[in-house]
């Protein structure tokens, strides 16, 4: 079993859905230690992505869809998260080349490149109370799951679990990047909104992978 373009587009649609569903929650988190627009920003971006998704040409491969997400988010989100998340997708697209099917190793490469893209642009380190605190444990857990021989679904589930734990773990931190860094000690006790949205997006990846695997819709073209 491996994951193809259907998973990628399902993942994107599900990301859009959960971002929209959690829009107010993300706004609220951002209002507490930022400027209250994170949910709005991502929702605007993913809505634009959905509009464009049907325009993907017949025979598009995963990297095509990921690139579409990247450029659309960069063009529509703005704020800090636009270039950061956009770059994540852009680097993820680069990491999977022209592959039609993504096996476990490819999924780990995708996640790793995405995380590295965020670091490249934002220069955050783990513990800075940013989305990196969801992404880095997710990447580590994904790599470990791959090493443990788990399949794509298992890898993505491990990543999603770790991202959620990572997002939660931002709560006691003082921020060193982004708007929350202005707060000093006062950021303590609040979850970083970007880490929360990252966990949601990674959970969407795992959920849609499970569905794709379960429904066997990907099986047709499976290697």
């Amino acid at each position, binding site marked *: 079993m491996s994951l193809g373009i259907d998973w990628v587009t399902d993942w994107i649609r599900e990301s859009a859905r959960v971002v929209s569903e959690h829009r107010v929650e993300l*706004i*609220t988190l951002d*209002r507490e230690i*930022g*400027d*209250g*627009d994170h949910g*709005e*920003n991502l929702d*605007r971006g993913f809505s634009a992505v959905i509009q464009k998704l049907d325009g993907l040409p017949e025979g598009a491969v995963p990297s095509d869809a990921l690139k579409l997400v990247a450029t659309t988010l*960069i*063009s*529509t*989100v*703005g*704020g*800090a*998260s*636009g*270039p*950061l998340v956009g770059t994540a997708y852009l680097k993820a697209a680069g990491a999977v080349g022209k592959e039609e099917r993504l096996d476990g190793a490819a999924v780990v490469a995708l996640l790793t490149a995405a995380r590295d893209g965020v670091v490249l*642009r*934002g220069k955050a380190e783990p513990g800075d109370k940013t989305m990196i605190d969801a992404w880095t444990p997710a990447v580590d857990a994904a790599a470990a799951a791959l090493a443990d021989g788990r399949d794509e679904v298992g890898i993505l589930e491990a990543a999603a679990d770790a991202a959620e734990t990572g997002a939660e773990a931002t709560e006691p931190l*003082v921020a*060193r*990047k*982004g*708007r929350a*860094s*202005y*707060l*000093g000690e*006062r950021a303590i006790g609040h979850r970083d909104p970007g880490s929360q949205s990252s966990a949601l997006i990674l959970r969407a990846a795992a959920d849609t992978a499970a569905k794709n695997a379960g429904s066997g819709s990907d099986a047709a073209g499976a290697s």
Partner: protein
Amino acid sequence: MKKLINDPKNVVDEAARGIEAAHGDLVDVFYDPIYIVRKGGPVQGKVALVSGGGSGHEPLHGGFVGFGMLDAAVPGPVFTSPTPDPILAATKAVDGGAGVLHIVKNYTGDVLNFETAADLAAADDIEVRSVIINDDVAVKDSLYTAGRRGVAGTVLVEKIAGASADRADDLDTVTAIAQKVNDQMRSMGVALTPCVVPHAGEPSFTLADDEIEIGIGIHGEPGRERIKLEPADAIVDRLLGPILEDLPFASGDKVLLFVNGMGGTPQIELYIVFRRAAEVLAERGIEVTRSLVGNFVTSLEMQGASITVLKLDDELTELWDAPVQTAALRWGR
């Protein structure tokens, strides 16, 4: 939420249309993506100034497009940096062959989006420089923060660098002057009440009836400390102290004193603040030779004010005095 708006989603677009309707003699407004340029197209051979950032700080930046100041302003969604697309479009629209200076307030989002736009413009053979504005002394500038924020002083950079560009200085000079203004000014603000971002619909923070936030950011980001309401003079002293120590300003300095309203503060209060600030500066032997009072860099309907002090020399004074003709700042023509 009580606002004179239609749909939160259309706030920036509709305001841009209002700017076009009101100031069509000064600016042209483009839509999809939205940006505002100086009437009459790019001035050949002149360095072009582009600024922008989240909306909600009006008149910044659209109100400062015109002769002697900006060539283009790029308004993002409320309190959210614009994406690279309109920044790039504006940069291309105003390039007169002498290069473009991006004036960017130091927020991660603004910096990243302007950076991307600058890269893309460079790919189109437009020479772009950037000056990052970070005048807010409320935030510690250290490895452990995203750095100081760009706040009200931005308007001083736009005015003075704009005058430099309009007297035909080259890109290096204009950039150096913008950088110098940034380096010689310090700001700090206070909030008495929060603001409400239209798409959020809720106050961006909460303050008890007797609390104020010292060191507030222009998006309602919390500042240094939350204290009980004090008389205006005591508040001014709290703001001016860190400003004066930081550069530091010294006896004998000539300065521009700028008291900026956050949007919801009555102007009569701004003058009470100005009075005290001028008094404190006089006590320290610092001479206020230029002044500015009003709502120039706002945070929607937030009540509060900020104080900016800029150290002047003859050149900066001359550039400050040079004619400017924009919707929100105008003299000499």
